[in-house]
């Protein structure tokens, strides 16, 4: 049997097992938790272990497995901004998330859009955040689709067309997401979490040692590569002067968005109690440490390229994001490639499923029901959720096929959009009345428009600073001006 058959057999076998578990859980779940509320937050009864595994698989995905090693291979020291902002996010989460949970419980919020609707007393604000949350999730879903394609392409040893592989894998998970509810996603995530952690730690520790004998040797190769890298390579073990503004803006801005992703908010709202939420914050942060071995894999990839053991130019887009799988393929037998590929793909699928699921739920509840068709029967609500989920999934797939990006930068674009909800949400919780309804809405819209303008039209970061920062400046300015003006006219 060829290497590709073994590796792909394991990957698709695992996909089949998880899909089977999902279908089973959905079937059982429909009987036990048939209420619409259960579709949204699984009845607020998830315990620590389930929530820990679910959140881990939900948060850590292709960006950990493929994106981080890719950025490390392509740009070197800059990658630490990603790991650091993630870890700092847990500190901020520890402070903010319990408040989010208790408010949600007191006020009966099921989604982030419910929170906005209640805080600002406006269904339009709720609907805006529901749609904006879904739209800014598209790059995140696109990232997962691209990642799945890279995994299958590498595991097939070049035998499988990545486009077909992406379509098959994502169609499966899209169907599952539409048919199932949060309960089944949680079950699947439990399976993914264990495999994902084992894979990243094993490859991260073993790969540099097998390839170079020690970290010292690895860094010696990298030092030499840095001095004589090929044209177009921007690798640096240190921060270059132009990186500092980006680095600082990432570690200050991105953590503010970390807990505002609609799917994460839903996981938080689904927690059993406030103690579970806090303990979970600490427990899930352990996953963040697993980014260190992932980064080492990226360094191993570029060092293997420097020593001609990898032919693919991993310093270039999009090849950098193949780093993790390439290292595994070069250094390990096909069955390890299969297991690691399964872990990475499972993580990507579970994340994409969670985001898609929540996007549909938000649209159905906060746009269709609250704004457009208040008397819609439950059947119609579920249909609207599924149609919207399918639209988001197809949009993500089209972008993955026709406008692929570097995985980490796709993630950061999503963060830049989502972070625009931070001031309105947090100030709305802690200091109600700071922004008026129109001020909040205008501010968020302005911030998101600035991020989109920088990403799509400008196509470079002003002063090298993260687009999320510029969006927040515009957001706060507009929200404050509109709110103050409205308050003055009212008095």
């Amino acid at each position: 049997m060829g290497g590709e058959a073994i590796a792909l057999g394991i990957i698709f076998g695992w996909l089949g097992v998880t899909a089977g578990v999902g279908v089973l859980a959905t079937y059982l779940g429909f009987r036990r938790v048939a209420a619409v509320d259960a579709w949204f937050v699984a009845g607020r009864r998830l315990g620590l272990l389930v929530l820990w595994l679910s959140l881990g698989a939900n948060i850590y995905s292709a960006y950990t497995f493929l994106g981080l090693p890719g950025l490390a291979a392509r740009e070197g020291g800059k990658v630490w901004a990603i790991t650091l902002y993630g870890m700092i996010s847990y500190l901020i989460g520890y402070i903010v998330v319990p408040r989010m949970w208790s408010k949600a419980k007191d006020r009966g919020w099921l989604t982030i859009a419910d929170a906005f609707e209640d805080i600002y007393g406006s269904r339009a604000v709720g609907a805006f955040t529901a749609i904006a949350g879904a739209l800014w999730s598209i790059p995140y879903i696109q990232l997962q689709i691209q990642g799945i394609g890279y995994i299958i392409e590498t595991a097939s040893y070049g035998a499988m067309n990545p486009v077909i592989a992406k379509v098959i894998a994502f169609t499966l998970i899209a169907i599952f997401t539409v048919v199932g509810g949060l309960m089944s996603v949680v079950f699947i995530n439990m399976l993914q979490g264990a495999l994902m952690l084992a894979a990243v730690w094993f490859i991260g520790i073993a790969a540099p040692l097998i390839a170079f004998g020690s970290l010292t040797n690895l860094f010696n190769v990298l030092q030499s590569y840095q001095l004589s890298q090929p044209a177009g390579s921007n690798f640096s073990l240190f921060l270059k002067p132009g990186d500092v503004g980006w680095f600082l803006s990432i570690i200050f801005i991105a953590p503010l968005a970390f807990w505002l992703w609609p799917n994460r908010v839903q996981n938080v709202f689904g927690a059993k109690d406030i103690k579970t939420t806090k303990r979970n914050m600490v427990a899930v942060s352990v996953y963040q440490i697993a980014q260190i071995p992932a980064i080492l894999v990226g360094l191993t990839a570029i060092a293997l390229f420097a020593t001609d053991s990898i032919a693919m130019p991993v310093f270039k887009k999009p090849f950098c994001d193949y780093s993790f799988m390439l290292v595994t393929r070069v250094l390990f037998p096909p069955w390890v490639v299969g297991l690691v590929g399964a872990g990475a793909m499972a993580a990507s699928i579970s994340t994409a499923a969670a985001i898609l699921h929540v996007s549909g739920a938000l649209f159905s509840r906060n746009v269709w029901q609250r704004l457009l068709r208040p008397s819609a029967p439950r059947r119609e609500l579920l249909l609207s959720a599924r149609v919207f989920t399918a639209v988001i999934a197809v949009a993500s797939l089209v972008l993955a096929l026709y406008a692929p990006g570097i995985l980490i930068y796709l993630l950061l674009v999503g963060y830049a959009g989502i972070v625009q909800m931070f001031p309105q949400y947090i100030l709305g919780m802690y200091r109600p009345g700071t922004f008026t309804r129109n001020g909040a809405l205008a501010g968020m819209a302005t911030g998101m428009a600035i991020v989109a303008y920088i990403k799509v039209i400008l196509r470079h970061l002003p002063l090298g600073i993260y687009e999320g920062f510029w969006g927040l400046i515009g957001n706060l300015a507009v929200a404050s001006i509109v709110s103050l003006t409205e308050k003055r006219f009212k008095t």
Partner: protein
Amino acid sequence: MLMVPGERRLSRVALYSAVLALAYLPLAGLLLVNSLRVAIGGVPALWVYAIGWTLFVFTLLLVLHVVDVRLGG
């Protein structure tokens, strides 16, 4: 010593603020370490610093949790 609710809230706010400030404190040395071209155990100083910073924030989170629980969180 007994703590009234207002004091407890104040001490928690102070705790959160202090922990957040500490988490960002290593920023002060980042540029200096970045300019050093020395290796520690074969690993560039910046990389050792970044790994240490990551683990430091993780430790802060653990400490925060322990203290928070003692404050009745």
